[in-house]
C-alpha cells in the first residue's frame, strides 16, 4: 500500500510490465485509473484477454477508468469548442500545463459511496511521451509529485509509472525526469536489453531494485537481476545464464 513503483526500460520494450500490472491489480480487486498515452484501448484489451482479464467488463463495473490519450488528443484538436467547466484531461496539449490531467486522476480515484474496491491504483503508460508533447520536465515532475501525494499518501494507493531511458541518451529532459523519479520510488523494475546483443531465447534482463534505503537510513538497496523471455501469454523469468536454451 502507498507505494510508488517505477518501470523503466532501456534499449527494449518494457510494456509487458505494464500489461502485467494492469491485469494484476484488476484481478486483485483494486480500482485502477489507467492513463494510456501511447496505445489504443483495443491493444491493451486484447493483451489483457490473453492474460485472463477483461478490460471492457472492468470498465463497465467501474473498476477501471481508462484514459485513452490518443483519442482525447484528437478530440482536443479536431473537436468543437469544449465547455470551460469541463476541460479535457489533455488540456496540456494547448496549455502545456498538467493541472487538468491531475484533476482527472484525482476525481477518478476518489472513493465513492458505493465503491467496495481495495486500494486505488494509478498506472501511467508512458511518461516520456509527455515530454515529446511539449510539456516541461519540471511540470511532469510536479504532476507525479501531486499524484504521489494524493494517491499514495492520502488514499493509501499505489502508483506505477513507465518511462523510457537509454544510458547513452542525449535526451536531457528525459534523463532529468527519470533520475528524479528513481530517487523517489520505492521499487524500480528496470528492463534492459542484453548487453551482449540480441538473442532469440532471452529477450532481456530485468533488475528489481527495492529501495530499502528510503525507509531505513543504514539499509542498502536490494538489487536482484533476472533474465526473461516473453511468450504469448506470459513471461518466464530465470536466473542469468540458466535459460532453457542453454540447459
Amino acid at each position: 500500500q502507498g507505494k510508488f513503483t517505477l518501470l523503466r526500460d532501456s534499449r527494449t520494450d518494457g510494456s509487458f510490465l505494464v500489461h502485467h500490472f494492469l491485469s494484476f491489480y484488476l484481478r486483485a480487486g483494486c480500482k485502477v485509473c489507467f492513463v494510456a498515452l501511447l496505445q489504443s484501448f483495443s491493444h491493451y484489451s486484447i493483451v489483457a484477454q490473453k492474460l485472463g482479464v477483461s478490460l471492457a467488463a472492468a470498465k463497465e463495473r467501474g473498476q477501471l477508468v481508462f484514459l485513452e490519450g490518443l483519442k482525447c488528443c484528437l478530440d482536443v484538436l479536431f473537436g468543437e469548442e469544449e465547455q470551460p467547466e469541463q476541460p479535457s484531461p489533455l488540456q496540456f496539449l494547448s496549455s502545456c500545463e498538467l493541472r487538468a490531467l491531475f484533476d482527472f486522476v484525482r476525481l477518478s480515484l476518489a472513493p465513492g459511496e458505493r465503491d467496495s474496491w481495495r486500494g486505488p491504483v494509478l498506472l501511467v503508460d508512458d511518461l516520456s511521451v509527455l515530454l515529446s508533447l511539449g510539456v516541461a520536465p519540471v511540470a511532469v515532475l510536479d504532476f507525479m509529485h501531486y499524484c504521489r501525494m494524493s494517491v499514495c499518501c492520502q488514499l493509501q494507493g499505489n502508483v506505477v509509472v513507465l518511462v523510457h531511458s537509454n544510458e547513452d541518451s542525449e535526451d536531457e529532459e528525459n534523463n532529468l525526469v527519470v533520475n528524479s523519479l528513481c530517487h523517489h520510488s520505492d521499487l524500480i523494475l528496470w528492463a534492459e536489453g542484453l548487453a551482449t546483443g540480441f538473442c532469440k531465447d532471452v529477450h532481456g534482463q530485468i533488475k528489481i531494485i527495492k529501495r530499502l534505503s528510503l525507509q531505513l537510513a543504514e539499509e542498502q538497496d536490494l538489487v536482484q537481476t533476472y533474465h526473461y523471455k516473453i511468450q504469448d501469454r506470459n513471461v518466464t523469468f530465470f536466473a542469468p545464464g540458466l535459460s532453457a536454451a542453454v540447459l
Partner: protein
Amino acid sequence: LVFTEEDKYGLYSNLLFKYFLAEGIVCGHDLFVASAKEHPDNILKELPAPLLDDTHRKELGNEAATVKSEDFQDSMKIAWRYQNLPKMETSPTTHTKFGHYYDVSKKMSPELYQSVKWHSFYLHEELSFEPKMKAWNINSGYARLLQSIQRIISQEGFDGSDPQKKTRSVLRIGIQSLGSILWGDDICCSDPPEDPHSLTKFLYALRGLLRKSLSACIITVPAYLIQNKTIMERVTNLSDMVVGLESFIGSERETNPLYKDYHGLVHVHQIPRLNSLICDVSDTKDLAFRLKRKLFTIEQLHLPPDLSDTVSRASKQDLAGSAKLLSSGCGTMAMGKRHLDF
C-alpha cells in the same frame, strides 16, 4: 506507423516509398500522398509496374530448382555439424503469396493508378488554407497536413463514424521527407531547433488518427540531417516500426570487399508490438539490400568467407563496432561495444 530513415541521397528510401504506394494500388487501397518536395502527381507517375505473376514466378522457380538439385548431392565433409541447419533462404521463396513483386525498370500504367481513389497534398499548393486547429503551437505545414488527413478520413468513412459509408478498404498514407526544411521545420539545420516539439506532436496526432481509422502510413525522414538526437529518440518511441536505410554510395563501405554484393544495409530499429505481448522477431537482424536491374531485394546479410591474405584488423573492428554481423554467422547483433571484443 512505419518510420523510415532516409539514406544519404534519398535514392533507396524513395524506392521503398514507391513500393508502399504501388502495393496499395494493386491491392485496391485508397492512397493519400503528401510531399513538399515533388508534386504528388509526379510521384504517382513514377511508381514501379507490378510484375505479372506467372513470368516472374517461373524465373524464381527455375533458379531455386537448379540450386536445390545441386546441393542435395553434396553432403558436408568437414563442417558436418552444420548439415542439419536449415538452408538460409536469401531470396523470397515461391511459396509466399504475401504482397506483390514489382519491376523497377518499368513505370506503372496510368490506367492502373487511376483505378483507385487517391488524394494528394502538396504543401506549396495548400499554403492558402489557414489551419483551423486551435492554438497548438505546431508548425503550420504540419497542421495543414494533419487537418487534410483528418478531413479525408472522416469524409471517406475510414474511421467508421458514418454508418452509411461502408468502406472496406484501407487508406495508405505516404508522407515524403517529413522534417526537412521544405516543410518549414528547422530541425534539420539548426541545433537546438526553434521548435523541437512540432514533429513529435504531429506524430502523436497522426498516431491517434491511424489508430482510429483503417489506415497505415509510411513516413520518410532525412534522419542523417537531424543533428538533435533527442528528437530521433522521441520519434522512435512514437512510431510502431522504424527502419533505417544506409546506402553505401559515397562511403568507404562501397569499396569494402565484404559488401560488394550489396548496395546498402537495412537497420530495423523497432518492430511493432501491437495487440500482443511479443513481437515477431526474426532470426537475424542483419539485412542488406541491393538494387538489381529489375528488382529491389532485401536479404540477410551474408559475408563472403574471409579468404584474403591481408586481413586488416581495422576492418574487422569497424564491423564489430558498427554492430553488424560477426563472421561466425551466428547472427547476434552486438549492441555494446565493450562486451564483445575479438
